[in-house]
Structures are given as C-alpha cells and as structure tokens.
C-alpha cells in the first residue's frame, strides 16, 4: 500500500527536510517500519516499547486518531495519509 506520511517540523531533520514522504505498508506499524528503513531514527522518535509515544499522535486521513482505531495495527488503504502530530510547547 502506498501511504503518504506528513512529517512534523521536529522530525524533518531525519527526512532530509521533507515535510511529506511516501511509505509502504498495510497497517501503521509496517508503515513506520518502512519509514525507519529510509529515515533511520524516526521510529524511535514516534514509538517506544509500548507503542506510539504518549506525547505523539498519529491521525489517519486528517480525521481519525489511530488510538481510537486499532493503534499501530490500524489497517490502511492505498492513498491513505498519516499525519504525525507531536506535542508542541512553544508560545512565548
């Protein structure tokens, strides 16, 4: 499955500055594994041993938080978009 993944600013140092990349996978877990193959280090920034890190969210097609679907096992279809949204602290 060809999936678009939107990369937040803090992770773009790992994607050569790209804010959107292509990845392959039938579910979120395999997409993240595929990202890791091409952009080493990104998996550790998004996931820990329990799953998606507590201060990171992943949205499917802009609407659905994968936590409320099947988490990393959420099934994907070709053309789907994943958006990685980390917590942002800045404001002053």
């Amino acid at each position, binding site marked *: 499955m060809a999936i678009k993944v939107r990369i937040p*600013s803090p992770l773009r140092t790992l994607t050569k500055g790209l*804010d959107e990349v292509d990845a392959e996978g039938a579910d979120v877990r395999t997409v993240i594994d595929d990202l890791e193959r091409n952009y080493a280090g990104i998996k550790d920034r998004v996931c820990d041993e329990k799953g998606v890190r507590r*201060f*990171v969210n992943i949205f499917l097609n802009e*609407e659905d938080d994968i936590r409320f679907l099947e988490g990393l096992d959420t099934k994907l279809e070709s053309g789907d978009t994943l958006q990685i949204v980390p917590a942002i*602290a*800045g*404001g*002053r």
Partner: protein
Amino acid sequence: MSARVLSIGAGGLGAPMLLILARSLDVSLTIVDDDRVAESNLHRQVLYGPEHIGRSKLEVARERLLREASAHGRRVAIETIDGRFVPENALELAGAHDLVVEGADNFATKFLAADASRLAGTPIVHAGVVRWAGYALGVRPDESACLRCLFEDLPRDTVETCATAGVVGSVVGTVGALGAALAIRLLLGDETAGGTLFHHDARRSTLRRARLAQRVECPLCGTKPSIDAIDSARYFGAAFAL
C-alpha cells in the same frame, strides 16, 4: 457581568489572543506573566514595539489593551499578576474565571493549566507553536476531549520551544487568532467549540482539523480519573527539563 478570562502569558500567543478579545468583547481580563519585553520578542509579540524593550510585559499589555478596547467601544477591565501560573495558585485562578487561555512555552504549565481548568470546571483554550507550525485546542470540561486525551502526559525528552528552535511570526499570529476564535466561541456557549484540534503548517499554508474523542483511560477526564488534585510533583520532571 462581563466574562472573566484568565490569560496564562502575554507573549507570542497571549498577545494576539488578548488583543482580539479586548477589541471584540466586554471582558474582564486577568494576565499572568513575569517577563520583560526583549528585542527578540518583537517579530511575533504584537503588543510590543521597540520603545517597550526592557519594560514589564504586563504594564505595556495593560496600557495597550485598554487603549485598544476604548478605541473599539469595549468595556474592558484588566488585572495583572506579576508571576507565573504555578501549582500553588493554579486551581484558585482557574476557578475564579469563566475561561482560561494558555500559550505557555513549556509543557509543565500547559498540563498544569489543563488539570486545574478541568478540576475547576472552567473551559480552556490551549495553543502552541514552534518553527513553522502550531495548534489550537478548545476544551469544555467533561464535554469534550482534553489535553491529556490528546497527549497523555508531559514529555520527559528534550523538546523544541520558541526559545530553542525559533518560530515564524506569522504562525504565532495565525494560531493566536485561532485560539481567540475558540475563546469567543466557548464564552458564547458554543457546544462545538471543544474537542477539535486545529493544526496549522505555514510551510504548506495548511490548516487541518481533527476531531478528538475523549479517552476512556484519560487520567484527567476518563471514567476512572487519577488526577483529582493539583500535586506539584506531577509537573516538575519536565518543568525544568525545558
């Protein structure tokens, strides 16, 4: 009686939110801040100019907001608190207002504001920005997802802030305006104003929104919440890591 709004901070996000509120509503504003105007603030903190460098942000904000309100025919009262929003005053401050808006630059304050607002039953607008992106989220206590439904707890890793990574001025303005719109909607009792995450990416000129659901296991607003009081230890681990 006019609405009472607590602004945590009068910086990059606080400035546009306060400016819009003061021009738009008859409102009683309480501003908490302990900072002084610096030259590096000026590209994004729209309440301040070069002539204000070195002055207390509270003083300048109060003068400017009262002037703006008067010019727009609004009756605005402003109380200032020279200090920070901390565990010792959080619950009392949140409970004394009809709405909290926060544009804090650290996670400890953001989560403290979320917890205190929920415990006090006060709606809150969260906003955050860094580099080219930012978000805004309105929360109606018990009625919509909260910050802890979205991000479960404070990051213990080092994270970027405006001070460490910088921020584009337009992002602050855009997200601040989004936050102000959410604030007005919440004050008007708009039941749809809570629980939607607005995410702005200036590099792509996009605004995306995602509807958030309340998490059953949320420690703040889930079915068995574990946060029923403000415990300062809960915020310290990250407060000083930033």
